[in-house]
Every structure is written in structure tokens, then in C-alpha cells.
């Protein structure tokens, strides 16, 4: 069953706990600049948008990698980097139009959000997001929820009109 990291920007309170959870899980330290999820804070407009890898269906990063170090997990459909195959050529960093690939000189290997697959498949950012701006759901479920949300809006409109 494909899983999706669902982000609700309107629920985000810009606390950035997700950035800290991510850098701790993958790097053992607290460092937002080492986080694969980033909260983009537009202070004036009061809009906060967390972004992470879009887990493309036809991923540029995976296609361009010369050592096939970026592979897709069959179950969740997310992509992860195989550290022992990555040579740090940075072609994936160049190829990704969204900035989802990062490479830190100290480590020498490319990194991306892989829904924590390389560790335990239990996304840490989701665990620490209090307003539930981040959720990790079955893809089917999420699509269904979106439809239901639309239906609820319609329901409210019907009630207004018929009263």
C-alpha cells in the first residue's frame, strides 16, 4: 500500500519541531540545516509551508544516478538512498528541480527524505508534529479523506440553501 506524507500547511504553527526530529533521527543531533523537511515561514502573510521530497513517480534523482543508489521501496513507494552505493557525485542534487536532494561535505553522501525507511519506516517528523500538520497515511485513505472533506463543504452549502 503506497503511503503519503500529508502536509496541511494551514495547521502548521511554524514550531519547526519536525526539522529537529529529522536531524536527530538521521544525524543524531539537533540541526535544522541538516533536516530533510523544512518549514518555509512567510511571516508577513502568516503562511507556513513545510516541504520535503515529493517522492516523484518518475524521479529525476533515481534516473540520473550513475550507480543506481536511489531506489524505490515497493511497499510504500518512497525513494531512499543506498549509502554504500552513493559516491557523492551530486548529479541528483543538480537534477532535482525541487531541492529535495542534499549532500553534506562531512558525510559525502546524498540524502533525501525517505519517510525514515532507512531506519524504521516510522517518520519522526510526524511523531513530533503537535497540530497534526504532518500525517503519514495510506494513499487511498488520504484521497478518500479529501473527497469526504469536499462533500462536507457541499453538505454545509446544502443546509444553508435549504433552511
Amino acid at each position, binding site marked *: 500500500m503506497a503511503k503519503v506524507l500529508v502536509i496541511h500547511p*494551514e495547521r502548521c*504553527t*511554524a*514550531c*519547526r*519541531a519536525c526539522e*529537529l*526530529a529529522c*536531524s*536527530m533521527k538521521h*544525524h*543524531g*543531533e*539537533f*540541526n*535544522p*540545516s*541538516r533536516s530533510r523537511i523544512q518549514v518555509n515561514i512567510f*511571516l*508577513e502573510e*502568516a503562511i*507556513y509551508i513545510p516541504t520535503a521530497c515529493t517522492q516523484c513517480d518518475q524521479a529525476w534523482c533515481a534516473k540520473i544516478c550513475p550507480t543506481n543508489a536511489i531506489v524505490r521501496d515497493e511497499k510504500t513507494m518512497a525513494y531512499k538512498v543506498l549509502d554504500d552505493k552513493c559516491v557523492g557525485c551530486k548529479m541528483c542534487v543538480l537534477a532535482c528541480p525541487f531541492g529535495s536532494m542534499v549532500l553534506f561535505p562531512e558525510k559525502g553522501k546524498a540524502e533525501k527524505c525517505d519517510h525514515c525507511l532507512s531506519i524504521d519506516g516510522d517518520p519522526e517528523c510526524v*511523531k*513530533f508534529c*503537535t*497540530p497534526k500538520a504532518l500525517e503519514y497515511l495510506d494513499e487511498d485513505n488520504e484521497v478518500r479523506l479529501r473527497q469526504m472533506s469536499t462533500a462536507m463543504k457541499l453538505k454545509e452549502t446544502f443546509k444553508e440553501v435549504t433552511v
Partner: protein
Amino acid sequence: MSAWRGQILRVNLTRGTTKTEPLDPKLARAYIGGRGLGTKLLTDEIDPKLDPLAPNNKLIIATGPLTGTGASTGGRYMVITKSPLTGAIACSNSGGYFGPEVKFCGYDFLILEGRAKEPVYLWLNNDSVEIRPAGKLWGKTTHEAEDQLKADTHPEAKVCSIGPAGEKLAFTACIMNDKHRAAGRSGVGAVMGSKHVKAIVAKGSQSVTVARPRDFMAASLAVVNKLKASPVTGEGLPKYGTPILVNVINAHGFLPTRNFQQGQFEGAEQVSGETIADTILVKNKGCFACTIACSRVSEVKEGKYRGAGEGPEYESDWALGISTGISDLQAITKANYLCNELGMDTIEAGVAVATSMELYERGYIPAGDVARPLRFGDAEALVWLIEEMGHRRGFGELAAQGGYRVAERYGHPELFMGVKKQAFPAYDGRGAQGMALGYATSNRGACHLRGYTISVEVFGIPKKMDPFLTEGKAEVSKLFQDVTAFVDSVGMCLFTTFGIGAEDIAPLLEAATGAGYTLEECLKIGERVWNLERLFNLKAGLSGKDDTLPPRILHEGIPEGPAKGMVGKLHEMLPEYYKLRGWDGAGVPTKAKLKELALA
């Protein structure tokens, strides 16, 4: 070292030099960080009798070991200095994102000394430290300065700055960071202004580590879940924010109205948390790593007071409205935004306006001294005066020094509602005896945060105590004061204590530092910090005589409402408080107590 970065950045503004020094691990162990260690560093380095606005005063930006970690609310920092408002210790706390960024640059403390010849700002970028000219920024609001500084350094840099108020050495001046967060009280903005420092800008990509990551994350998750489950931190604060208190305190009859002349405000509903949520609220927002997210992102969409920003919080709502007899929420919100932009403590500024209003109405301020009448309930006068104060012009030049200086100038210092020349916050001590004691004994002057007995006297957290009685208040005040001093030293937000306790925070601190902290020791450190602050104040020239309250609070009963006839019964609590503290009858810590706390 884990959690601590182990470094102090010392900036000599007179010579224009900077130096990195190692943090003494023994000192760190004994005082933790933030309020504790920052106060220790300051009190070791300055003469308590110095002039706070002279170059030899020091301004310390103090983070805690948990600042910059993922511990919930682990983003707090303190500004510590000698206060020009009170002549006592100043220790102002703030949230936002600035504190952690200092840690990401590699520092636990920034010590600013001397005075720059021309306006400057500091630019911290990992190992690089620059003192840059700030002439073009001088005179700008905190918001304008932050926008320009980000353009000149890095779009995601974090900024703390002063506005025109601090530049002009106003005692009501604060230090703002991330535009809407304030290190508010005690005139710390004036000290920064006296050093000609407009701003400190930080952008770091270094890490904060912890000694035992697995234990730390487990404890951290447990704290997050407790905060989510607690009604105050999990629902009330995110939903209504602190202004929920307006109707609650008003119902109890000790919401100070018209400069503490009444205990209830007929316009309370119009400025309540419920009304804010229904009208100007856009959404709630959180500080760094915060589970609670109580901040009010707000907007006044139309009319003469239109604008956007954050707030008003309960204290701001009360000081700018209610205490001024104003029920126009939009005007109050505009005044709040102005305070943030001009860099003023909303409490001190609001009470200065209220004090001026009472003096004016009683005929003590000649009409010729002020360009327009100052009467309770006049919303336009409020907004006008706040703007004048922020620029220290006209009547605002004096009012910007706070209500005490206004009352004193016009011959009626007894009409200033505060302690040690710092204004009371939004609870009348006559109706909540624990707060009366807390206001009188707080080391930084009147303050609600130092020992927030409202917790027991209104909310029953952790147990219910009758606000009208004095029994047991000395003991609970001391306990709250010591625990608060501990929490203020680690880098977490005090609001967490509505949902968790020191027994949850001590293990977090231990997992982060691996230094061997126990709960008992942590509480002891809180007591140590409280006494350290007390010693500084005594050497600065304050005494037990300053642990008092204005005559109105001690002798005039609240005129109406649930707390009718109540006065502040300080004399029933203070001797017991001194005794519990191990101080003599004059409020001086005994040698035995100091030895016990390793302060002698």
C-alpha cells in the same frame, strides 16, 4: 560538552573587538544556563552600583542547555543586565527563534561590553563574527530593521533588535526578536541602546548535541504527549491564548481597572480572549520546537487602526486596555503593534499611560504639559501617547520612562502601581494574596511570572487555594519562585509548567547534558539563583524596605465586586516568607543559607 556549546562570545564594543572564551564546565554545572548562569556571569563581572546606561554595564544574551534542542519549547533565551528602570537585576525572557540560532552559531552566551562610537549591529555566522555599521538602521522600527538586516545578511537569519525607544534610552524599551517576540521587562532595550547596538543577527548551521539521544528523545516525546493531553497547554492556550484570562480574572473581581482604582471592568467582554478569537485572530503560532503554540497572529482588517502582527496577549491587552479603561479592541491591538515596532514593553508602556491618565484626571498634570487630554477610556489618546513614547517626544519623553517617573515628576509617586519602580502586571494583589507577596518579593520588581500563584489561586494547579487567604501563600510562593528560576535556566518556556513539572524537566536536562543532575539538585539550583539575584540587589542598594506595595494596595480596599474591601495583607506573609527563605528579619540571606547554597 553536550547540550551546551561550551563557548562564550565576548564583544568589546568600545574597542570593536570580539573574543571566544570557553565556558567553565563547573560554573555551567552549578548554574545550568539561561537565567541562572547568565546572572552568575553578570554579577561576577559588574559592580552592582554602576549606572545601568554607562558603558561599563554589560548586556548578556543567555541561552540554556536545552535551547536549540528538540525539547518542547526548547527555544528560550534570557537578556540579563542591570536595569535602568529599577536599579536592580534585569532578566527578561523571550521565545521565537533567535535563541537557538545563537547556539547553532556555537555560543551559549553573548556578553556585550562597553559602548560603540557609532551605531552598530553584530552579525554572527557560524565561526564568523562581524561588528558592522548600523547608521542607516538607526531610527528604524524593529520590523524595518529586521527586513533590512535579512537582506544584508541572509534571508533566514534570526534577528533581535531595538526600536527608536531603545535608541532613545527609554526605560520602557524592550528587545524584540523575530518581529513579534519580546524580551520585555525592566528596560533592557535601553541598555542595548546605550551601547549603540541596533541589532544582533545570527545564522548558524552547527549542531546542538545531547549526551544520551535515545533517552532524550523518549523523554521529549513523553513531554510532548503530556503537554498535548493537558487542558491548558493542549487546548486552552492554543485556542484562545493568554487573553482567555480576561473574563476569568474579571469574574474573580481582581482585574485591575483604571490604574487599580477598580477590580472589575465593564468592557471586559469586548477585549476578552473569546472576542479576540471571534474577530481579529488569524491563527495561532508557535515558538521554536513548541507544542503549545499560544501566540496570536492577528489582523485588524479595516478602519483607522488597521494593521497586522501578533498579539495582544493578556498582559498587553490588560495594560493597554482595561488598565486604561479602554474597551476598543482594535485600538488596543494597534497600540500593541506599535509597541512591538517601536520596541517597548507593553506592560510598562500601558501602565505609564494609565498612570498619566489618573494624574491628568486628578488635575496633577497641567494641561499645558501635554498636547492633548489624557483620560481613561480615550482610545485615540492611548494610540497617540504610545507613538509619542516610542519616539520619546513631547509628553512621551517622560512617559517613556515608565509610570513611576511620571508620578514622581508630578508629585504623586504613590499613584504609581508597581514595585521597585517596575509596573504591576494584570492581577490585583488585593484579590490574590499570593500575587501580592510575589510582586513585593520578585527580584526584578513587580512581576507575575516570578511566582505565578494564580496557578493555585484561580486554576487549582496543582491544588486549589483561596485567593483571599494568606495562609500557606509564603510557602507556595517560595516553591513557585524556586521552580521558575530552575525552568528559566534550562531554556524551556514557563508555560510548560501548566502541563508538566520540574520532575519532567530535570530528566530532560540530565539526558541532554549527562552531567548528573537530580530533581533535588535542580530545585536547589533554583533557590541558589533566587538568592544570587537577591545578593546583587542588596549590593546595588536595595533592601527589605523595597519589598513593599503601594499604599493603595496596602490600605485601600477594592471598592466593589467580589473582592470588595480586600487589601494586600503583605504583613501577614512577608515575615514568614523571609523565614522560609532562610533570611533575617530585614530580608538579608543569612550566612548559613548562603553556605548551604554554595554562595558563601
